[in-house]
């Protein structure tokens, strides 16, 4: 006789929507999510709605004040500040949007694997992770960027590599919490191999912790990316980018403050949006996120 039950496990789609609902039910989460969505949407449709071409220079209109033609004025080459601000997040979102999942993926898999294996290999790996974490992020990244150049094809793997290292720690700690539980022991007793255990027993249980970690990594990666741009090691001109725009407009702050204020608002609103969403996501998934300093 078939056993019938009214209980049905929520599918992934249902679970996704319930988490989104939970995030939106908190004011900070709703604001954060709205900010992130509008930035992503802007990155997608930006080129179709901006009033000017972002490379059009105008020698007669250098550093002009806000006017009907240029709502936020123009920069030191006579380019429209509003246009460049609206487009300034595209590169950053593209790079960090690809690098974040990569970082979580490789850091998560390595962390789970060594959390399961344990023993001496695990100890050695953690020492290496500690050693990497004790170097300032900017030094690690600059070495690779100076070596291989500054294009997207260098920035994405560089960010993904270095930001995956702290994920190893999180994944390993989360795995340690699960590894001693009965269902993992049962899987071992059934004779499953390591990779089956990782795939079927461990990953589903550390997934939530990794998602929250990924959201936080995203904001830190964005911070790193824009700082690199600001220092002149990120996006190359004339591509509009907030970090680069602030660096360029800094010298003319006293004549045209909008040149720095507009990109500052763009960058800050995206980063704050991601942070608010990440906090709400952590609460929605029931992950207790310990206080950590940025790496």
């Amino acid at each position, binding site marked *: 006789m078939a056993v019938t039950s009214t209980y049905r496990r929520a599918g992934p789609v249902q679970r996704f929507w319930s988490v989104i609902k939970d995030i939106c039910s908190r004011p900070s989460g709703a604001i954060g999510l709205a900010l992130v969505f509008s930035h992503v949407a802007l990155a997608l449709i930006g080129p179709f709605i901006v009033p000017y071409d972002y490379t059009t220079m105008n020698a007669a209109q250098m550093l002009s004040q806000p006017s009907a033609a240029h709502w936020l004025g123009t920069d030191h080459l006579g380019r429209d500040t509003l246009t460049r601000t609206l487009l300034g997040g595209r590169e950053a979102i593209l790079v960090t949007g690809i690098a974040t999942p990569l970082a979580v993926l490789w850091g998560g898999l390595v962390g789970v694997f060594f959390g399961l294996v344990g023993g001496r290999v695990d100890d050695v790996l953690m020492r290496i992770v500690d050693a990497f974490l*004790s170097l300032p992020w900017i030094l690690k990244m600059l070495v690779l960027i100076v070596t291989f150049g500054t294009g997207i094809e260098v920035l994405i793997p560089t960010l993904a590599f270095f930001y995956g290292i702290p994920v190893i720690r999180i994944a390993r700690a989360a795995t340690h919490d699960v590894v001693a539980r009965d269902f993992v022991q049962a899987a071992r007793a059934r004779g499953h191999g390591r990779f089956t255990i990782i795939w079927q027993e461990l990953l589903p249980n550390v997934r939530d912790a990794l998602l929250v970690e990924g959201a936080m990594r995203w904001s830190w990666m964005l911070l790193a990316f824009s700082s690199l741009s600001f220092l002149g090691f990120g996006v190359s001109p004339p591509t509009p980018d907030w970090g680069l725009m602030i660096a360029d407009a800094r010298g003319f702050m006293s004549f045209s403050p909008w040149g720095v204020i507009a990109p500052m608002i763009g960058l800050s609103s995206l980063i704050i949006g991601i942070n608010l969403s990440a906090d709400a996501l952590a609460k929605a998934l029931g992950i207790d996120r310990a206080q950590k300093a940025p790496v």
Partner: protein
Amino acid sequence: MLSMLMRRSALGLITVWLVSIIIFIGVEILPGDACTAFLEREAQGLLLENCRRDLGLDRPAWMRYGEWAANALSGNLGVSPDGQRQISELVGYRLRNTLLLASGAILCGIPLALFLGIVAALWRDRPFDIIVSTTAIAAMTIPEFVSATLLILIFSVWLGWVPGIVLTSSNAPLAEFFPEVLLPIAVLTLVMTAHILRTVRSSVIETLASDYAQMALLKGVPYWQMVFRHVLPNALLPTINVVALTIAWLLGGVVVIETVFNYPGLGRMMIDSISDRDLPVTQAIALIIASVYVGVNLLADLLTMVANPRLRTAHLRGK
């Protein structure tokens, strides 16, 4: 307890050793070496070979690593190829300037964070707490170069109170850095305070809700005595580690802030040295920063152990 202290110190030393290997490998993969940087366009043929032989660059990597590490241990960080000067001398002034910046931020930031964090926790969810917490989140998440530029715009360009850029040379006496150093210190303090404050606040709130704090209130201990005698000593213990992490972060975050303010510190020197391929200087700075990071974290662990009675007496309970 003693064995635990030894164990932690040994782990710290191993970490520094691994860091030195990573630094060495990292600098190895940088294109060019001290000779190509020194000779620039003439870096070819016999000249390059002679230079490499003079500096010992033709030897295998492990030999050079051994020599570098041994010299670094005795405080000799090598000679810069361009000026033929001691790196320890070049780095010394920069380190002093960065320490001025860092100590200013630490001296202002820690008391401020403790005060604001405790008050915000005691007045939880009141307007004061909401304002402080929101400002802290904003200060933590916004990139340092943005908050630095904002402060320059407000206090230097609009109000004209303090200079927004540092023009003092790196080896000037410390007194000459005032008032230029105030704005960089303010930015560092802002970010540091935000990080520490958040931990202090949540830790105090957690402790206030604990059984023993409630018990103290119920048996008639006055509120303020409960706060000062029962809550704060327990709540502030975990903040030692966050303070350490924040100080360690400070050394990396200072790179961007020094560049914004044109401040002649270690961080800006690091960026310059990487761009110029001045490899010995890069190695030296990386090693200094990493050692400070490991050292501060180690100190925090030791302090926590000494201050925490449960860890102090762990061996008595046979743990």
